[in-house]
Every structure is written in C-alpha cells, then in structure tokens.
C-alpha cells in the first residue's frame, strides 16, 4: 500500500467524522495558537523596540534614580531610599567632567492641561523641564523659533517650546511663535516649535511642552522630584570611557563609599534592550510552558479519540485484513490519521496565531512579522505529538485478530 493511498484514506476518515475531528484538533489549535501568537507578538515588539529604541538616541545614556523597568517587586525601597539627583549634583558633575559629551539635566511631569484662548489639551501632555544641552541629547529638532537658552534658564523665564500635537489641538491656524499658553494658571510664551517625531509603541512623541529646567523646578518640583541626566556622547568609540568617567565623578559628588554600589541607575539603549529581552524571555518561557501543557493535553485527547476510532472501526479493520491488509497497512492508516489531525490543528493554530499576533503591530503601526522558525517548530512538534500519541492506538488496531474483528458488532 503506497503512501498516497494511506494519505487518502486517512483524509477520508477525518472528513467522515467532521465534528469529532474538529473537537480533537481544537486542543492542538489552542496549544499551537498560544505559542505562535505570543511569539509573533514578541517578535513584533522586539523588532519595533530595536528600531524605535532611539528614544534616547544611540549615542545617549541616562542617569536616573529609578531603573527604567523594574522586574518583580521587593526592590522598591532600595530605590526610594536613594538621594534624589539634584540640580546642584548636575552643576558639580558638569564642572568636574571634561570628556567628549554634553550633559543635560531634565525633569518631567504630566497631568496638567495646556490652555490657549478657548482651547485646552487633555491632561496627557508631557511637560518637560530641560537644560539647553537638551538640544543635543533628545533626538528632537527645532522646526521654527529657538530652543531653551542659558538665559532662559538663569532667569527662570516662562517660555516654552511646543510639540506638533499640542499645536494641532491648541492653535492649528496660528503661527505659534509669540503666542501665550497657560499651564496651571501661569502664562508661558511660545518661543519655538519641534519637528514631528512620530510615535513609539503607539505613544505619540509629539505631545510635549518643553520649558527651562529651573522654571520647571520652581513651579512643579516637590521633595520627591529627582532629575534625570542625559549624557550625549560625541564620539561613539568613547562611549564606555565617558560612562565610566561620569559614574566616577557622580559617585564622588554623591559621597558613595568605595565598596557600595551606585546609588543611581545607568540606562542606555543596550541596557533597555537587555531589560526588554529579560521580560520577553520570561514571557516566552511562560508561553512555551502553557502551550506545552496544552499540547500534552491535546496529545492525550488525540490518543483517546484514536482509541475510540479503533474500537468503532473494528469491523472495518477486520474487513481490510480479510482482503489482504497487512499489519503495517493498518498501522500506517491509523498513525497517519493521528498525524494528519495534529498537522491540520497545527496549521490552523499557526495561521490564527500569526493573524492575532500581528494585530498588535497593526494597532501599533509597525511592520508585521511571520515567525517562520516558530511555525516550523510548531509543525515538527505536532508531527511528533501525532506519532507519539498515535502509535499506541495504531498498534492496537494492527494487532486485532481478523476473525474477532469481523465478528465485532
């Protein structure tokens, strides 16, 4: 009996028991779907993280009080008990450091709507206080007007540079330069606008208002406010040297004992990507575990249904044997049926997984991905499941005594 006949007869029998086949392969579908869905979504995130993580600019790293992403609980007090990064620390750092880099200090808050005449933004605008060096570390470019200057800083002027989203909401028909906006009841005069930067992970980067750091500190700071320092390195080959030097000076300024660890965090693109990979790695393992369990359950389901099928078709097996089917023929027939069931489940699961996994990039407006490696792994694993769980029923069928089988009602 050749392979084509085996395949045809397996397909026939699957087709003849549509509902049962469907229910059986549902388990496989769910198992494969969960793994492929999660892997697709993570691949999408990863590729968009790697392309978009110029949040900081490739040549920039950050010093801040808290880590960028905290995994797990329990460490919170360690970070909270640190001294705030202050403006005076910043000034000392700038004085003592002389390497090829600019150091920006910045602070940020949200929750205040911006008002202009009768218009008002939602309270989701990021209000950022920065030093003039911000121009070099931020990745933003001036579209019209000018940036925050040293004089703005020194005199704590109420001036603002605004992003395109803010312009769209407040004053789409005006020339923004020279207009007066209001934040928490205080008037700011618009001195510049930023070029549109786009969005990362569906979050607009243009919904911002930039003001002098000193103004921000005076108006919005409280005892929990800790500044962030952005260090833009001019020469990428000196990146590590600059980082080490900054750490050295900052430890001195903040009186960190020699043997103690840093009382601040260093965040760079690569450290962000590392953190991100740690998280996605954990998600991947979880997804792998869940779908392994689902697939194991599915395999047992397949074994169960194949055993039922063997019993139900005892007479058919008897007939086939009486007209010349060898053990191997019967065995192949049932084994391939099991493999087919899992394969069909695998294909449906993969398609669903990729579709659902790619819904994320559609909402995030990034490119979709096709996780070929996981699709192949899915197919192979499902074949293995079909073989492992299909063998026992198939052997049982092949071993049936033809006389008993023919007599079976």
């Amino acid at each position, binding site marked *: 009996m050749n392979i084509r006949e085996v395949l045809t007869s397996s397909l026939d029998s699957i087709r003849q028991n549509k509902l049962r086949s469907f229910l059986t392969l549902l388990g496989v579908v769910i198992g494969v779907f969960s793994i492929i869905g999660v892997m697709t979504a993570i691949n999408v995130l990863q590729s968009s993280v790697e392309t978009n993580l110029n949040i900081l600019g490739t040549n920039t790293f950050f010093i801040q009080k808290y880590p960028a992403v905290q995994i797990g609980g329990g460490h919170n007090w360690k970070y909270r008990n640190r001294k705030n990064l202050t403006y005076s620390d910043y000034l000392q750092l700038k004085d003592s450091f002389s390497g090829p880099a600019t150091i920006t200090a910045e602070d940020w808050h949200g929750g205040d709507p911006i008002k202009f005449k009768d218009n008002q933004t939602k309270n989701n605008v990021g209000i950022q206080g920065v030093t003039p060096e911000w121009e070099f570390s931020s990745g933003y470019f001036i579209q019209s007007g000018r940036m925050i200057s040293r004089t703005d800083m020194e005199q704590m002027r109420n001036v603002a540079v605004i992003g395109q989203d803010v312009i769209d909401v407040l004053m789409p028909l005006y020339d923004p330069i020279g207009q007066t906006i209001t934040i928490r009841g205080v008037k700011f005069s618009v001195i510049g606008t930023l070029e549109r930067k786009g969005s990362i992970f569906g979050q607009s980067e243009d919904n911002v208002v930039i003001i002098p750091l000193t103004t921000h500190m005076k108006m919005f700071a409280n005892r929990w406010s800790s500044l962030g320092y952005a260090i833009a390195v001019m020469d990428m080959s000196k990146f590590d040297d600059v980082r080490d030097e900054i750490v050295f000076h900052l430890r001195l300024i903040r009186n960190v004992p020699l043997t103690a660890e840093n009382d601040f965090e260093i965040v760079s693109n690569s450290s962000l990507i590392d953190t991100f990979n740690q998280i996605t790695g954990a998600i991947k393992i979880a997804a792998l575990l869940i779908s392994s369990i689902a697939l194991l359950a599915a395999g047992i389901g397949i074994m169960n249904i194949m055993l039922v099928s063997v019993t139900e078709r005892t007479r058919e097996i008897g007939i086939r044997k009486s007209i*010349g089917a060898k053990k191997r023929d019967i065995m192949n027939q049932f084994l391939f049926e099991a493999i087919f069931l899992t394969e069909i489940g695998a294909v449906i699961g993969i398609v669903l997984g990729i579709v659902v996994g790619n819904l994320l990039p559609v909402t995030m407006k990034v490119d979709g991905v096709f996780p070929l490696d996981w699709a192949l792994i899915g197919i192979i694993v499902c074949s293995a499941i079909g073989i492992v769980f299909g063998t026992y029923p198939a052997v049982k069928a092949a071993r049936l005594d033809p006389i008993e089988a*023919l007599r079976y009602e």
Partner: protein
Amino acid sequence: MALLELKKVTKVYQIGTVAVHALRGIDLTVEKNEYLSVMGPSGSGKSTLMNVIGCLDTPTSGTYILDGKTVHNDEKKAAENSTNGMLSDDDLAYVRNQKIGFVFQTFNLLPRITALHNVELPLIYAGFHKKERIEMAKEALRKVNLIDRMHHQPNELSGGQRQRVAIARALVNNPSIILADEPTGNLDSKTSQEIMQLLDELQAAGNTIVLVTHETDIANHAHRVVHFLDGLIASDEQTLKGKG
C-alpha cells in the same frame, strides 16, 4: 495436484481452562473449478474450517496446502523446530489478498465509500496503480452486472446489489478460490436465487467455489456437499448436479 489440500487438520480453542475441539482431524481436498458446499449445524466446525481455509486462522495441527503453497505443516514445523512450516501474519495477509476471495453473510462492505472503491480495496493492498485498479474494479463490477451503480455507496444499494459488490470484490484479484460464508443468509428467496445464479455462472466460467450454508436448496447448487458434525466430516457426497 489438488487446489486445496487439508490433512489431519485440528483446531483447538482454549476458552479459559476449557479446551474446545472445533476441528478434530479433517481430511479434505478440493480440485480446481470444483463447486463445494459445506453444511452442518452450528458449532459443528464449519466456520472454523472456513477461517482456516481462508487463512484468517491457522490450524493447531495438521497440514494445509493452498494452490501449491504450504500454509501450515506441523511435521515440517516439528522437524525443523522453526516457524518454517507456518506463515507469518503478513504472509497470511498476502495469501488472503492473492488467493482468496471472501463473500460474507453480512456483505462486509465499507459503508462510506462507493461500490467501485470497495471493489478497488484488495487491489490497493496488492499494490496496483490507480489507473489499473479502476479498470480491474470496473471489469469485476461488469461481471456482476453492477457497472451502472459503481458510484453508489452501500447504503444506496439493495441487499442483493450489496452482495454483488462483495462478489465483485472477491473476484477482482483473480483469486484461486472464492469462499462464500452463508452468502444468501441475509437475502430474501428471490434475491438469493439471483445470487446463487451468479455464483453458478462464475463457477461455470472456471472459478473454484466453497460455499457454507445450512439451507439444502442452496447447498444443492454445488456439485459436492460435505456435512460436518462435531468437528468431523460426517459425509462427503456428489449432488445431483455433480453427478450431472
């Protein structure tokens, strides 16, 4: 040489601790193109005989030679102290496929495939290619006069038609012998006559037929009738037809 030769064939079933002697030493020869009926009350061993002849079962002892092939020979088996005198399961399957055509009381067609496909089945296991298979299956269906129903499934056919499909399936691989086990047992008398007429025609065309029945008028279609009783042949005689 005889087409089929049984010598001192016994069959003992072990049911729990009780040994059931289904065949107690049968000697039987069937020549080529013979038309033989086997009769006897239930439990007399005629079904066991059919299973042994049809290679669905092997004798406990004795010798069985079918068409020159030794299916079972326990002298040889004892002498060589090996399985040489016995065919393996796969060999038995091969013999069933090549040399035996079964016709059952309950037709035993696969229910969800067409008549043509049912007739094709033995050829699939024989390894014929699809094109060849379909030609041969059509030819067999033509012989039983059912070529116009070849695309029907068994449940769309009458009892008589189903049995014709089964006969076509038995014929399709040109077997040495056709074994019909109560072929008319599930049919009304008119249809029974049609089926018997078909078997008569096949025998006339050169086929060898062994028929198991408990109805005398069916048995009398054959040329020779063997009566079974308690696992032994009680009588073996020519019918009127056989005496010709």
